[in-house]
């Protein structure tokens, strides 16, 4: 008898084991597949799109906000008279009847009829009361200030999966923060497959994108946009740009470029316009580079403001090349203050030779030349400096006055800001604060990158630059009551192994007020036609913006 009991027990255990095995197969191996099957029977899964974070200026006005748009969809299986429905929808939506009709003939439960509908259009379609036609709410970018700061903001396009994605500028750099996370829900259905309205099961919640508060001052950005556009038109330039930063904190107050593009209809523009030239265009800075080289030599103790140049009585010959001044005027025994004032190339060759390649590169590295500034915008580029061994004497000579060396405007403005900020170089930053969907604010603190020159050298260099404004070529546009430090630049443009004989890049870089700077600014015009000189094109625009800035900031006269 005992063997029978044992047999029954064994069989029962075996049965249990088989049940456990099967359960394990379903719950572990096939879990995901069965879960999806269950969900399909239980309800219809759909995605909930998050609201993209807004981009706001320092006064918390939205430069890039969201507006509601609707997607019209239809369930062809619920539409009986497909031809009549196609006709009605085509008339209301003002689209081809054939495309709607083709969609409605498909053997699907869900087809897209039209996208990007405004509220009024949606209401018109709703009034048709067509069974099987529904709407999906979406958010589209809306730019209250139009195309202002378009190249700074970037735009929102679609990725490979058709989802929203930020490209260029702030939209590109902060895309993950701005996008948020798409949510997933299941609309529960009854036994007949009809949706149970009050039963929506959330699988993963949607997370809205974070808002960004910029350091950009809306009024100054507007002013800069207006002035640079005026300048490009007045001087017949191909393009123009201006960047303004707070040299003490690195806060980017404005970056304006012209021509720009309309971020809503970005597809209508040449893709070259999407890039922000202030961070992506490499150019030879010309004389605006001289303050960096001069302050490096002064900081190294190799020259002082009164040091006399003993090679400045005529053109300097180096390696078979003759280096001349821009106006062919020569000042024998000119001192360093006047080298900057007259923008004397031979004087800068003298300074470059004093520095030598080693110290020249070492100091420029400290100014961040040849490195990314770290600005929080997508697409910043840099041209790395050549190795010390590959520099010929003539390379050092030309680089001393800003030719044969390529930098971006932001690189130059960041370096010049170090002179304005008592020798401390700050990381340029566009975003001031991040506001998460739950309202938590995270401030981005100013970051000191390094100290390329001492505060004493910075003060001396500032005075030399004030002197250059007051007595140099741009003195005709200087501010009467405010001391502004600055330097003009008229740079040749390299093309196919030589320099363009007709065109230049005209620029002006400076900061003010000299004692306690509130702004550092760089104005650049590409190939101006009415005059090729920075003193006659970029300088007037620089000072016309500076005049507005001293008034806007309420800066007391210091003369």
């Amino acid at each position: 008898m005992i063997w029978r009991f044992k047999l029954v027990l064994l069989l029962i255990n075996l049965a249990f084991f088989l049940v456990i095995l099967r359960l394990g197969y379903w719950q572990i191996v096939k879990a995901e597949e069965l879960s999806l099957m269950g969900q399909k029977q239980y309800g219809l899964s759909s995605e909930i799109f998050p609201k993209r974070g807004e981009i706001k200026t320092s006064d918390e006005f939205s430069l890039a906000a969201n507006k509601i748009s609707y997607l019209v969809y239809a369930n062809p299986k619920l539409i009986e008279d497909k031809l009549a429905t196609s006709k009605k929808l085509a008339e209301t939506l003002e689209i081809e009847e054939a495309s709607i009709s083709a969609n409605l003939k498909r053997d699907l439960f869900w087809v897209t009829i039209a996208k990007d509908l405004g509220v009024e259009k949606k209401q018109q379609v709703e009034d048709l009361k067509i069974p099987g036609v529904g709407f999906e709410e979406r958010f589209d970018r809306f730019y209250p200030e139009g195309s202002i700061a378009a190249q700074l903001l970037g735009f929102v396009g679609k990725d490979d999966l058709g989802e929203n994605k930020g490209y260029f500028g702030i939209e590109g750099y902060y895309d993950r923060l701005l996008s948020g996370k798409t949510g997933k829900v299941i609309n529960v259905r009854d036994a007949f497959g009809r949706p149970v309205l009050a039963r929506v099961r959330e699988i993963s919640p949607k997370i809205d994108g974070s808002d960004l508060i910029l350091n950009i001052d809306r009024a100054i950005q507007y002013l800069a946009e207006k002035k640079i556009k005026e300048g490009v038109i007045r001087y017949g330039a191909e393009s123009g740009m201006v960047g303004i930063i707070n040299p003490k904190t690195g806060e980017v107050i404005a970056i304006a470029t012209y021509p720009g593009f309309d971020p809503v209809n970005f597809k209508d523009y040449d893709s070259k316009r999407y890039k922000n030239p202030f961070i992506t265009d490499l150019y030879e800075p010309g004389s605006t580079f001289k303050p960096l080289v001069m302050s490096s030599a002064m900081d190294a103790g190799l020259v002082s403001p009164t040091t006399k140049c003993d090679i400045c009585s005529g053109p300097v010959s180096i390696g078979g090349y003759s280096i001349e001044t821009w106006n062919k005027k020569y000042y024998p025994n000119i001192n360093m203050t006047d080298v900057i004032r007259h923008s004397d190339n031979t004087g800068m060759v003298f300074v470059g030779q004093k520095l030598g390649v080693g110290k020249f590169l070492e100091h420029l590295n400290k100014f961040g030349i040849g490195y990314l500034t770290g600005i929080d915008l997508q697409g910043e580029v840099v041209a790395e400096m050549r190795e010390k061994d590959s520099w010929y004497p003539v390379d050092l000579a030309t680089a001393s006055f800003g030719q044969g060396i390529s930098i971006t405007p932001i690189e130059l403005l960041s370096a010049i800001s170090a002179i304005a900020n008592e020798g401390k170089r700050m990381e340029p930053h566009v975003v001031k604060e991040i506001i998460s969907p739950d309202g938590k604010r995270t401030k981005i603190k100013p970051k000191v990158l390094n100290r390329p020159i001492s505060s004493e050298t910075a003060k001396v260099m500032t005075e030399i630059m004030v002197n250059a404004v007051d007595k140099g070529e741009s003195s005709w546009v200087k501010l009467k009551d405010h001391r502004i430090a600055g330097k003009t630049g008229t740079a040749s443009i390299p093309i196919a192994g030589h320099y363009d004989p007709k065109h230049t890049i005209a620029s002006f870089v400076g900061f003010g007020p000299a004692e306690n700077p509130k702004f550092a600014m760089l104005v650049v015009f590409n190939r101006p036609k009415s005059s090729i000189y920075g003193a006659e094109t970029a300088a007037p625009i620089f000072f016309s913006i500076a005049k507005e800035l001293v008034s806007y900031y309420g800066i007391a006269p210091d003369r």
Partner: protein
Amino acid sequence: MKRSTLIIVFLLLITVGLLISKSMVSNNYSTSGPELAKMDTQVKEYKTENILLKEKLLKLSSLNQISSEAGKIGFVERKSYFSLSKSVPLAKR
């Protein structure tokens, strides 16, 4: 009456009582679903209205709009500036 009969009657009463309570509670809450759905729809409508109003507000308060309106009512750009660069003497001997 036997003890077992008492227990059966007691259980029956409890069952009937609970059934009546369930019916009453269900009756009370049966209309809450549509009400909840109505409230959800209302919330959604208000949210949409807020976004639409915000869009209008942003358009009206943009600098482009303000600048154009200011021009229409006669505001002109300031062409000259003045500043008090030196202290003005109150009296001279």
